């Protein structure tokens, strides 16, 4: 009896403690659950290098402001011997760095960005506006690069105009969208983009704005940077259209209609240059962007949870995600096996397959998986006839798995199917183990049985994909690692559960009569 009591005690403790600890954390810090979940935050560093300096030189660059969509926190700067000041205008906040010496100056400026995406829904019956306030009607005029008055633009605008604003914007959007994309960084004005039927982001944006203006819709370009883990020098230009008191974003190049993703950092409004500097100096620059995950400061500083793993140990987030969620995925599989009664190839394999799928594109994953297993099955049938010893047979299959992955990848590259060429990222080991287990089952059971087990393994792996991709779950376990105890408790309970598996009801259906 003693071990039974111990068993129940263990379960009770493991279930209750997480809730206590979690509740304690929430109460103590007086935050809600939503605040504790991770937010995607970017650290952006402007890295500048000025050389070959005359007695007085400067660099000007736009700096981000707080808006509805973005929250900015300045972290640090290294301005050396430069004088720094900022000026605000309708275009945005501009920083100016002036030299005091003629020595080469390497300087940087670092800030943190937390962005939100924004989506607008335009009413389909919404009609055109007129009578704009003076500040807005400025955005109806043609400029040097946004030639709204040019006959070609006017003609095209007339052709695209529809009965209401929504349809008109749609027409403009689709028209500019189907223009060929070029990747030049050079400035392209609206007319050139239209004439050549070819433009980069800045040409397309200017054309879109020009068309809108010619149709009597106030519009402007907006400049900024698309944030992602990288070092880059390219900025991005998108557009905004004024309607009913709101400036609504449109990014033709990336297909965002009345929508802007969270990682678009806005730096300036209107047709400006992100960075300007004194003519003739040696100037180089780079944007260093790093993505990280953060929770509220109070909790992060408490050190009572695992967030430090992210910043200190340099573990790539993808890997961490897989490790953190593995126990939960394994629990899901235990439930599918012991409660529902599906048979799979082991408990680890579906988890690993699911993890692999969540890292590559889903289509590529399915094609890779399906092709390899099919190939291996055929191979197995042949090898069986030749009566090979087990281990050499396995090595042959493993080699063939690698060959099929290479083949698929080559196919992907040649047919321009990006997703397929990424097949190589699918873990070879996982595929080989699955192939070997499948082959083993083909021997031990009937073909239909082996296929059923493979199917069940595959389906459960699919279910693991959203699990592994969930930022919510990752954040949850990072913030409340005590819930691993709850997983342990659940498995202790399941370990002594003698109920019938769901599929067994079907197998023994004859007993229900």
């Amino acid at each position: 009896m003693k071990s039974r009591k111990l068993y129940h005690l263990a379960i009770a403790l493991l279930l209750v403690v997480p809730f206590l600890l979690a509740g304690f954390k929430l109460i103590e810090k007086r935050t809600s659950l939503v605040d504790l979940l991770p937010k995607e935050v970017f650290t952006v560093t402007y890295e500048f290098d000025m050389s070959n300096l005359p007695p007085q030189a400067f660099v000007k660059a736009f700096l981000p402001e707080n808006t509805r969509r973005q929250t900015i926190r300045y972290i640090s700067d290294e301005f050396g011997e430069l004088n720094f000041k900022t000026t605000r205008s309708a275009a945005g906040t501009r920083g100016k760095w002036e030299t005091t010496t003629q020595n080469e100056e390497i300087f940087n400026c670092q800030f943190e960005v937390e962005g939100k995406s924004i989506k607008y829904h335009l009413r389909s019956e919404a009609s055109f506006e007129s009578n704009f306030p003076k500040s807005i009607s400025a955005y109806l005029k043609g400029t040097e690069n946004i030639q709204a008055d040019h006959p070609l633009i006017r003609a095209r605008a007339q052709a695209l105009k529809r009965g209401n604003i929504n349809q008109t914007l749609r027409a403009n959007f689709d028209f500019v969208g189907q223009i060929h994309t070029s990747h030049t960084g050079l400035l392209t004005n609206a007319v050139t983009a239209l004439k050549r039927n070819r433009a980069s982001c800045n040409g397309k944006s200017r054309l879109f704005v020009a068309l809108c203006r010619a149709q009597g819709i106030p519009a402007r370009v907006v400049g900024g940077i698309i944030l992602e883990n990288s070092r880059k020098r390219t900025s991005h230009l998108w557009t905004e259209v004024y309607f009913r008191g709101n400036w609504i974003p449109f990014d033709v190049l990336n297909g965002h209609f009345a929508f802007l993703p969270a990682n678009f950092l806005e730096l300036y409004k209107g047709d400006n240059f992100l960075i300007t500097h004194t003519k003739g100096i040696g100037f180089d620059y780079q944007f260093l962007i790093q993505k990280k995950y953060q929770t509220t400061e109070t909790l992060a500083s408490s050190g009572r949870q695992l967030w430090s793993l992210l910043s200190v140990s340099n573990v790539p987030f993808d890997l961490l995600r897989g490790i953190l969620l593995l126990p939960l995925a394994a629990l899901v599989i235990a439930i599918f096996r012991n409660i529902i009664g599906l048979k799979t190839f082991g408990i680890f394999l579906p988890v690993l397959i699911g993890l692999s799928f969540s890292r590559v594109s889903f289509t590529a994953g399915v094609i890779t998986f399906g092709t390899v297993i099919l190939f291996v099955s055929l191979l197995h049938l042949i090898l069986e006839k030749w009566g090979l010893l087990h281990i050499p047979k396995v090595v042959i299959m493993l080699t063939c798995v690698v060959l099929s992955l290479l083949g698929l990848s080559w196919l992907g590259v040649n047919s321009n199917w990006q997703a397929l060429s990424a097949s190589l990222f699918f873990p070879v080991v996982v595929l080989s183990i699955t192939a070997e287990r499948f082959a083993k089952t083909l021997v031990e059971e009937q073909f239909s049985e082996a296929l059923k087990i493979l199917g069940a393994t595959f389906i459960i792996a699919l279910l693991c994909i959203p699990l592994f991709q969930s930022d919510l779950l990752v954040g949850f376990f990072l913030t409340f690692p005590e819930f691993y105890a709850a997983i342990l408790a659940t498995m202790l309970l399941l370990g002594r559960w003698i109920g019938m598996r769901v599929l067994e009801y079907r197998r023994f259906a004859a007993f229900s009569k």
Partner: protein
Amino acid sequence: MFYFLNRKKIESEVLGINARNLSYVYPKNPRAYFPLADNKVLCKKRLHEKHISCPETYGVIERIGDISACWDQVSNHSKLAIKPANGSGGGGILILGKDEAGNWISGGKKRSEERIFTHMARIIMGMYSFGSKDQVLIEQCIEPHPFFHEIFPAGVPDFRVILLHNQAIMSMLRMPTEKSDGKANLHQGGLGIGIDMERGTLKQAYDGSQYFDVHPDNGHPIAGKVIPMWEEILTLAIETSCAFPLNYLGVDIVLDETYGPMILEINVRPGLAIQLANRKGLKNLLHNSNQKNLWP
């Protein structure tokens, strides 16, 4: 779909796999003794020690170097069964007989000694045990009692008896069909025929989806047929159970036309389809028979 509505009824009678493992297989069978059931060589050793009727073991080969010597000793027999000790799926089993000229035949084809040696070498090298080393078991071939061939002319059918603490709880007869390619395994398309243990007669046959009173391939009668030597079969099953330190067992018995009931092998995780073959659940039968507590 409606079976789910009546699930209480199913639950009250049927032993599911979770319950089987948790209440019977693992508590009743000390893990250390599993190899006595899983390894045919160890099993035979114990059977011979306890003088329990089973096919005579002609030889056991552990190393490739011993094949030749062992073969010389056994090749005077007119029939042989060569099996992997740890094999599964029946893939490694080779039944050999001699023709008039003294050549070895298997499945109607001539087999040279070289090929037979190769087969045994492969067994040792683990071809049928998924890479891990194995032993070759050479034993007496079974001649099935004509009773079986009255139902179906081919293969070696066997009786499966489930015992708990040396008491026979339920049994069935596993019979091959055309579909099963000579194998009696239910998984591979064979028939499971329930047994009325009191009367010693066969009940209906189950093929995985339907029940039959006759064999589905040839219409030979099954239900109600009297099993020859049933008392001896039961006694042998109980004797075997007593001989092993395992308390929840499935015992496989064949009926040889000359030697009567013989133990083929024992199973420490006997399957649950026996309930379907008998149209009766194991749950209550086992519970009533069970004297010991669930907890250690």
